[in-house]
C-alpha cells in the first residue's frame, strides 16, 4: 500500500535503527512498565486522587424515567441546605451545543450537557448541585424536585424503527441514528446458483465496560481558563467537546488526563460530570470535583451495543465461501456519541477473517430508551464474530467439513485486497489457527463425544490496526503527534499525545525513544496527555495507539536523530546513516576516533546552531478517506491484526454451569514490542470475552429501569473463574508498523466468545444463538431438549422481526 507520508519522512526513516540492532525492542524485552512503581506503592494519581485546596463537590440529578418530558425543576429545598453553593439546569449551557463524537460528525451530536425539555433514558442528567462536601452535595441532589410527563418508553430496537413508534429524537426518521450499507460483487446471482445457502439468526446482549475506576472529573477556573483533570481516553477530544458544550474557545480549556483506571472504550465520550464541574468552578471560583458512583457508571455512561443478526451465506459444496448477506440491527440506546462508528465496524468485521467477494450487508442503529451504546473494546467485533463464527461452525456441520479446514480454506492471506478495497498487509492468521488447534488437540476432538458435557471449540477473527475513524475535519483525520527534545545533560524528553488508559503505551513510547537514541529507559522523560503540554492526538481507541502513536513517536525521535546525525556526518565526512547511537554514545562502528558521548553530541549540535536544541516532531495518520464511513469503499486501516481462539469447556449437564478448562489464543500482532504486554492484553481479552459469553448482561424492567447496576448483581469472572491461558504470538514484521508491530489490544477480544460458544455447543449437542449463555438459560435448554428433542435455542423471535422491518430510508 502506498503511504504518501513515507516519502515526506524518508530522510528521517533512513536513520531508524535496523531490526537486527534492536536492544529494548529486541529479544527478551527486559524492561518494565514506567508506571509500575507508582502503581504498586499507591502513589499513582488518578482523577479521584486530585485534591485541590478549597475544593467543592458536584452531584448530578438523574431521570428516573426512560422517556419523559421535563415539566419543572424545583431547587428551593436543596438551596436551603447549608453548604450548597449552586445549582445548574440545561438552560445554563448554550442551546444547540450538543455533545457527540467525533468532531467530523458534529451534525450528529445529540446529547445536551443537561437535558432541557426531554429525558431519553433512566439516568439522563437533568440538573446538578454543588456543595462544600460530597455528602452535602448528595443530600442536596436528593432534594431537587423534578416534575415529569412520562412518555411511552421505546425499548425494542425493531419496534423503534416502525412508523408508529414514538420519536426519541427527531420525528420522521424511523428513529435511526445512522444506517450503513456495504456491497460488492453480484451476491444475488451467486446465491441463486450456489450449492449451499442458508439463513440464520443470532443475538448478543448489552454489557458494560466495568473499568474498576469510576468516571469523574475535577475542574478549576483561573485566568479565564479552565483546567480539567478527567477520566478520558482522549484529552484533545474531551477538550473539543468540553469547550463546545460550554460555548467557549478551545484555547481556554486545558484537559489533563491523569492515570486512568481502565477505559475499554467507556471513557471516550464527554459527559455531564465533566461539564458541570467546569460551570460550577467558574460560578464559585473554587475547584470542583464530580466522581460518579458505581450505579451512575452503569446507567449513565456507555454500554456495548446489543446486536440482532440475520446472516445468509452461500458456499460451494467443497466449502468455498462465495457470498454473504447480512443485516445487523444495533440497539443504539438513547444517544449517538462514539456509538455512531458501530455500524461500519460491524460490517467490516463481518468480512473478517475470510475472503468473500460478493457481499450485501446493512447495519441500522435505531435509537431506543436504553442507556446509550458506545465504543467498547473489540468494537462491534465481539458481537459480530460471535454470530458469524457460530455460523461458520453451523456451515461446517451442514457441509460435513471439519470446522478448522473450512476456516483455513477461506482465510485471508498476506497482501490480499478485499472487494470493497480493504488492503491487508502482513497476515499470520493461518499460523494462529493451527497453533491453537494443535494446542487443544483438535485432531483428536472425538475423545469427547458430542453432547457428553465436554467439548472444544475454535474461532477466528480479524481487526483493524490503527483505525481510520475520522475524528477531525482535517486532511489527516486521525493523527497522533509527538515532539522529542534531546538534552545535552544526557537525557531526552518525549511529549506524547498518546493517552495511556492502562494498556501501557506510556512505556512503549518511552521505549521507542530510548531504543532509537541508545539511552536507558529512565533517561527518557515522558510528558503525556495534556492539551497544553503535548501535541495533538485523536485518543485511545480503534487499536490505534501502538500503531499510530508508536509511528508518530518514532518519526519524532527520528527527526531529532536525523538532525543530530546530519550535523556529525558533516563534521566526520560521512553520511548520517553511517552513525550509530548506542549505550549513550554516538559513533561510527570500528572507528575509535569518531566516538563521542550522547551529551557531547548534543552539545556540539547546539554550539554550531547558536544554542538551538535538538528537537524533532512527528505525526502519523492512516491516509484514508472520510468516504469509508459513508460509502464503505476504500481502505479502513494501515494494517490489520488476526486472531484465533480455542476453548475446552466442561458443561455440568445437571445445572448448566460452564467451566472454561483451558484456553489458547493465537495473535498476529506483527512484531511484539513487549511480549509480556502483549500477553497481558490477550489474557485480559479472554476475561472480557468469557464474561461476554457466559456472565454479563444489563437487565431492564418493562419501563427501561436498569435492574442490576452493581457488581453485586452484574458479575464478571473472578480469579477463581478464569482458566490458564496459553498465548501464541504468531508474529511477522509488519512493514508499516512501528518496529514491525501491529495492534494487540482490541482484536484479541473478538474470537473469544465464539470459541467458547462453539465449545459449549459441542459439549451439549445444542446450538445456542443468543448471549449470554448463563447456567439458567443452558439448564432450561437442556431440559427442553430432553423433553422435546429441540436442539436450536435463542433468537427465536428474530425471523419475524427481520421480516417486518420497514425499508431503509433513501440516502441523501
Amino acid at each position, binding site marked *: 500500500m502506498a503511504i504518501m507520508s513515507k516519502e515526506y519522512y524518508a530522510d528521517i526513516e533512513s536513520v531508524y535503527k535496523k531490526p537486527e540492532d534492536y536492544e529494548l525492542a529486541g529479544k527478551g524485552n527486559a524492561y*518494565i*512498565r514506567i*508506571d*509500575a*512503581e*507508582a*502503581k*504498586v*506503592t*499507591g*502513589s*499513582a*494519581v*488518578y482523577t*479521584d*486522587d486530585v*485534591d485541590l485546596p478549597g475544593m467543592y463537590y458536584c452531584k448530578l440529578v438523574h431521570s428516573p424515567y426512560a422517556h419523559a418530558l421535563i415539566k419543572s425543576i424545583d431547587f428551593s429545598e436543596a438551596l436551603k441546605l447549608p453548604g450548597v453553593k449552586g445549582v445548574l439546569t440545561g438552560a445554563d449551557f448554550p442551546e444547540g451545543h450538543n455533545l457527540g463524537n467525533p468532531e467530523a460528525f458534529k451534525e450528529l451530536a445529540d446529547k445536551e450537557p443537561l437535558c432541557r425539555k426531554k429525558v431519553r433514558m433512566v439516568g439522563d442528567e437533568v440538573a446538578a448541585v454543588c456543595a462544600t462536601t460530597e455528602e452535602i452535595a448528595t443530600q442536596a441532589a436528593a432534594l431537587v424536585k423534578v416534575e415529569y410527563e412520562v412518555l411511552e418508553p421505546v425499548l425494542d430496537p425493531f419496534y423503534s424503527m416502525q412508523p408508529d413508534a414514538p420519536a426519541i429524537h427527531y420525528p420522521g426518521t424511523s428513529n435511526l441514528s445512522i444506517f450503513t450499507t456495504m456491497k460488492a460483487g453480484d451476491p444475488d446471482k451467486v446465491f441463486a446458483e450456489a450449492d449451499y445457502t442458508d439463513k440464520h439468526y443470532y443475538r448478543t446482549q448489552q454489557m458494560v*465496560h*466495568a*473499568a*474498576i*475506576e*469510576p468516571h469523574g472529573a475535577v475542574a478549576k477556573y483561573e485566568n479565564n481558563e479552565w483546567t480539567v483533570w478527567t477520566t478520558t481516553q482522549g484529552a484533545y477530544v474531551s477538550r473539543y467537546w468540553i469547550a463546545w458544550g460550554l460555548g467557549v474557545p478551545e484555547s481556554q480549556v486545558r484537559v489533563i488526563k491523569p*492515570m*486512568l*483506571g*481502565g*477505559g*475499554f472504550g467507556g471513557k471516550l465520550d464527554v459527559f455531564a460530570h465533566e461539564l458541570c464541574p467546569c460551570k460550577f468552578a467558574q460560578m464559585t471560583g473554587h475547584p470542583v470535583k464530580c*466522581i460518579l*458512583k*458505581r450505579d451512575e457508571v452503569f446507567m449513565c455512561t456507555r454500554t456495548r451495543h446489543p446486536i440482532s443478526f440475520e446472516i445468509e451465506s452461500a458456499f460451494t459444496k467443497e466449502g468455498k465461501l462465495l457470498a454473504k448477506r447480512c443485516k445487523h440491527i444495533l440497539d443504539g440506546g438513547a444517544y449517538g456519541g462514539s456509538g455512531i462508528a458501530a455500524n461500519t465496524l460491524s460490517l467490516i468485521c463481518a468480512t473478517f477473517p475470510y475472503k468473500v467477494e460478493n457481499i450485501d450487508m446493512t447495519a441500522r442503529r435505531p435509537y431506543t430508551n436504553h442507556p446509550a451504546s458506545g465504543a467498547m473494546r473489540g468494537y462491534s467485533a465481539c458481537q459480530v464474530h460471535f454470530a458469524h463464527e457460530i455460523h461458520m461452525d453451523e456451515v461446517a456441520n451442514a457441509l460435513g467439513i471439519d470446522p478448522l479446514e473450512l476456516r483455513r480454506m477461506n482465510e485471508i492471506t498476506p497482501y490480499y485486497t478485499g472487494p470493497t478495497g480493504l488492503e491487508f498487509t502482513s497476515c499470520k492468521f493461518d499460523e494462529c489457527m493451527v497453533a491453537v488447534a494443535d494446542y487443544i488437540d483438535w485432531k483428536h476432538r472425538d475423545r469427547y463425544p458430542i453432547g457428553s458435557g465436554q467439548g472444544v471449540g475454535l474461532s477466528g477473527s480479524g481487526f483493524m490496526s490503527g483505525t481510520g475513524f475520522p475524528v477531525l475535519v482535517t486532511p489527516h483525520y486521525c493523527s497522533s503527534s509527538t515532539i522529542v527534545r534531546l538534552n545535552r545533560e544526557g537525557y531526552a524528553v518525549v511529549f506524547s499525545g498518546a493517552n495511556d*488508559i*492502562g*494498556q*501501557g503505551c506510556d512505556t512503549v513510547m518511552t521505549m521507542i525513544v530510548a531504543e532509537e537514541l541508545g539511552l536507558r529507559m529512565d533517561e527518557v522523560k515522558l510528558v503525556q496527555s495534556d492539551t497544553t503540554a503535548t501535541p495533538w492526538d485523536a485518543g485511545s481507541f480503534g487499536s490505534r495507539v501502538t500503531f499510530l502513536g508508536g509511528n508518530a513517536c518514532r518519526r519524532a525521535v527520528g527527526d531529532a536523530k536525523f538532525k543530530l546525525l546530519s550535523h556529525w556526518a558533516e563534521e566526520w565526512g560521512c553520511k548520517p546513516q553511517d552513525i550509530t547511537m548506542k549505550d549513550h554514545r554516538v559513533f561510527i562502528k570500528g572507528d575509535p576516533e569518531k566516538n563521542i558521548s550522547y551529551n557531547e553530541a548534543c552539545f556540539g549540535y547546539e554550539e554550531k546552531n547558536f544554542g538551538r536544541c535538538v528537537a524533532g516532531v512527528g505525526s502519523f495518520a492512516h491516509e484514508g478517506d472520510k468516504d469509508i464511513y459513508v460509502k464503505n469503499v476504500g481502505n479502513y486501516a494501515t494494517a490489520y491484526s488476526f486472531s484465533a481462539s480455542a476453548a475446552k469447556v466442561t458443561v455440568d449437564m445437571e445445572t448448566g454451569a460452564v467451566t472454561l478448562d483451558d484456553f489458547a489464543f493465537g495473535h498476529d500482532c506483527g512484531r511484539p514490542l*513487549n511480549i*509480556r*504486554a502483549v*500477553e*497481558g492484553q*490477550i*489474557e*485480559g*481479552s*479472554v*476475561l*472480557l470475552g468469557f464474561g461476554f459469553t457466559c456472565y454479563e448482561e444489563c437487565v431492564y424492567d418493562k419501563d427501561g429501569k436498569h435492574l442490576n447496576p*452493581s*457488581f*453485586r448483581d452484574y458479575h*464478571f469472572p*473472578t*480469579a*477463581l473463574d*478464569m482458566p*490458564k*491461558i496459553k498465548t501464541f504470538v504468531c508474529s511477522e514484521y509488519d512493514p508499516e508498523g512501528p518496529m514491525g508491530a501491529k495492534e494487540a489490544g482490541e482484536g484479541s477480544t473478538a474470537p473469544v466468545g465464539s470459541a467458547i460458544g462453539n465449545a459449549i455447543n459441542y459439549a451439549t449437542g445444542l446450538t445456542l444463538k443468543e448471549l449470554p449463555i448463563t447456567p439458567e438459560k443452558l439448564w432450561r435448554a437442556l431440559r427442553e431438549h430432553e423433553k422435546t428433542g429441540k436442539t436450536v435455542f435463542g433468537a427465536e423471535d428474530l425471523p419475524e422481526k427481520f421480516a417486518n422491518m420497514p425499508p431503509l430510508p433513501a440516502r441523501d
Partner: protein
Amino acid sequence: MKKIIHFTLNGEPVEALAPVNMTMVDFLRKEMHLTGTKRGCEEGECGACTILLDGRAVPSCIMLAMEADGHEITTIEGVKKNGVLHPVQQEFMDKWALQCGFCTPGMIMSALSLLNENPNPTEEEIRDGIAGNLCRCTGYVKIVEAIDCAAKKLAKAKEAEA
C-alpha cells in the same frame, strides 16, 4: 457527630477526630490524604479499597472509621519499608502483573493477607485469596504468577534466615 479514635496506621500511632458515619476509605483518603486506597464500587464488591486490619484483608468501603479504633491498619502506602519494595510489590512490577493499576493496591493487600495466613499457597489458594478483588484488565494470569513468585521468594528468604 465526630469522635476521637486511636489506632496504628502503617506503623505509626494516630489520634484523630472522625465523623461517626464516615467509611474507612473516605477517612483514609479525605482525612489522612492516603489516596492509594481506591474507591471502585463503595459496596464491598470490587476489592479496590482493600486494607489490612490486624494483618487481615478487609474492604474499607464497608467499614466505618470508628471500627479502626484500637486496631492496626495497613494501607498500600505502608507496604514499602525503608525505601525497599515488598517482594509482592517487586513481583507485580517484574511480571507486568498490572495494567491500569486501579485494582493493584487492593490486590496487593489481599495477597499480603493471604501470605500472612498461608505462606505456601497453591495456585488454587492464591486464586481464592484474590477472588474478592476484581480486575478488568489482566485476566488475573500474571497476578497469580506474581503472588506465586513472591511467596516462593519469601519462603526462601525465611529459610535462609533460619
